[in-house]
């Protein structure tokens, strides 16, 4: 975590005020090695000499545009890049991401938003890859282990089938919120809800049989009529 704050950052924006503001709250958050550029040529030059670890690029620069700057940078650097643009159109966003940018933030933005996304990118690129663990959580007196795909209770262990596992994972990812039937079917079968109405119902009932104390009066996996289901996980 600490070495992320030691990374070299390059901010490219022709507005000095924007650069100063970003600089300000990045320093406040602990970043120290921050470089500024307001021109395309300057940014390219700094990238060669300083070799920053990540760059925040404005799309519109006085002597060029951020997209071609990224293409030029890619000739010699594979550092992650975030676009910061005053153009919010979807086309530009897709173009930026299509060119290999790691994120695309539209002005005006909240500092917290920029910081979170920046750190997320840095962590993804530079933090040592951790063994990603699937969640394990408790529902009533049962422990649901999505890593091993088992439901453990006082009476013993029950295995989740692949589909049940996929459905529960999706529900758990949005715990407390409604997951529509369509999203569940996409997660489990990669298809529309249309034609899977009964199949989904059958699978939900089987999951309830495994995780609910009383499957016909569910307390954790609730039906939201007309929309889908939601998984209530208390006090995790």
């Amino acid at each position, binding site marked *: 975590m600490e070495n992320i704050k030691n990374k070299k950052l390059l901010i490219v924006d022709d*507005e000095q*005020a*924007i650069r100063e*503001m*970003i600089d*300000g*709250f990045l320093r*406040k958050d602990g970043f120290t090695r921050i470089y500024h550029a307001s021109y395309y040529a300057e940014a390219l030059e700094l990238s060669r000499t300083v070799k920053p670890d990540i760059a925040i690029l404005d799309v519109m620069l006085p002597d060029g545009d951020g997209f071609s700057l990224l293409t030029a940078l890619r000739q010699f650097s594979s550092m992650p890049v975030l676009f910061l643009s*005053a*153009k*919010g*159109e*979807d*086309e530009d966003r897709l173009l930026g991401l299509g060119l290999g940018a790691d994120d695309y933030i*539209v*002005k*005006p*933005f*909240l*500092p*917290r938003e920029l910081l979170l996304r920046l750190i997320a990118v840095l962590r993804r690129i530079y933090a040592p890859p951790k063994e990603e663990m699937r969640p394990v959580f408790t529902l009533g007196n049962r422990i649901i282990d999505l890593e091993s795909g088992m439901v453990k209770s006082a009476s013993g262990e029950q295995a989740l089938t692949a589909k049940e596992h996929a459905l529960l994972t999706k529900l758990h990812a*949005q715990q407390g*919120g*409604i*997951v*529509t*039937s*369509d*999203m569940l079917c996409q997660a489990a079968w990669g298809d*529309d*809800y*249309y034609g899977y*109405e009964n199949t989904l119902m059958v699978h939900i009932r089987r999951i309830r049989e495994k995780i609910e104390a009383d499957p016909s009066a569910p307390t954790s996996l609730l039906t*939201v*009529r*007309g*929309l*889908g289901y939601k998984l209530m996980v208390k006090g995790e």
Partner: protein
Amino acid sequence: MDGTITILKRFISTTMLISILLLVLNLLLLGLWIFKGMNEGNSPNTVVRQVAENLKVSGQSYSLAPEAAQLLDQHRAWAMLLDQSGQLVWSHKLPEELPASYSITDVAKFSRSFLMDYPVFVWEVGEGLVVAGYPKHSLAKYQNIYPVGWVEELPTKTALLLIANIVLVLLLSLFIGSRLIRSIRPLTRGIQALADDTEVHVEPVGVLRELAKRINGVSELLKQKRSALISRDEARSNWIAGISHDIRTPLSLVLGYASVLEENAELPEESRHQAGMITRQGEKLRTLISDLNLVSMLEYEMQPLQIKLLRLSALARNAASEYLNNGLAEQFVLEVDIADEGVQVQGDEKLLLRAIANLIQNCINHNPGGCRIVLQTLTGTDKNIGRLIVADDGRGIPPDRIPDLLELPYSAKRQRPLQDGHGLGLPMVARIAKAHHGRLILSSGSDSGLTAELELPRHK
């Protein structure tokens, strides 16, 4: 092409009618004229008869009644009486060059034609032959001799001639008419194309070349106007995009510093609260700018659509669960009622979700006291239309205000100024529907509330 056929039919029938009328008129005039010419004054036959009847014999001398003499004088005519042997027995103003005796050959000759160039007419009387003569070169005498068969066939022949005339007129008018039509056809095609708003060029040839040039001119004019309109739309859209771009940078600074102040623990609670207000309002401004940009792009048909096959029911569930998951105030009830699970449309998922969200938000905005919102998907009475309905049972909107809701705020088409909200929500939905070749229909609910229907072309 129906138009040209009609023109041809009308042209031919009118031409035929005119020709027949002309023929009848000519026949009438001719008949009248001949008849009149023949009967001008007293005919020579009448004159000679009058003379014959008024010639009194008393022994060896003859006397002509004065009225008959007057009649002769009127016509500057002369008269004579020949006896059975051809000798002149009486005369009246007889020219001196005429002989006093005539052979039977002479009589036969002059009774048919002329006597020494005098047109003469004869009338038989008991004692001989009265001959009345007119001045030289005053009358022409014709004798018509026809075979009986020819005379008998005359009515049939006249009828045939008439029919032949009619056929000739028909063919002629057909010929002239079709030539006319051939030159009109490109023009009608051109006008049709103008009506369909496509570019046309009519070759300016034939009698109607001036018209063809005019049509080409109009087409050119329309093209110019259309391109002017497009470039003006582009300019407007770019202008709005430019303004929103220029607002974004200063707004970034406002939002950025306000939120830094809001999170600064060293500041008094009140100042942080005020900074928070700046942040919230800045965020509102941010939403407004992007909405304005989207509506402008939609209005001028510049918004790119990421079209894919979508199920209306899935869209409705997605939109509803989004609202419910983000915490819907408890005075609102949001339900989804799927009548037809199978309705699919070709559309941009993000835009359609935005449209549904705007419709739900509209229900919430108009009913701060709470209401029940129902999302329905169904097939229209027209099987080619999929319908998504967002209905509430809230306080509704007076029907006369409904058309206003779809107009852009500050538009001249709006009857009343904006009352609440930034007013882009419903116009945006209407434009999203239009971009999908569908439409938004707003209506007051059966007893209360507002019903918004999104009609989209159904994917078969």
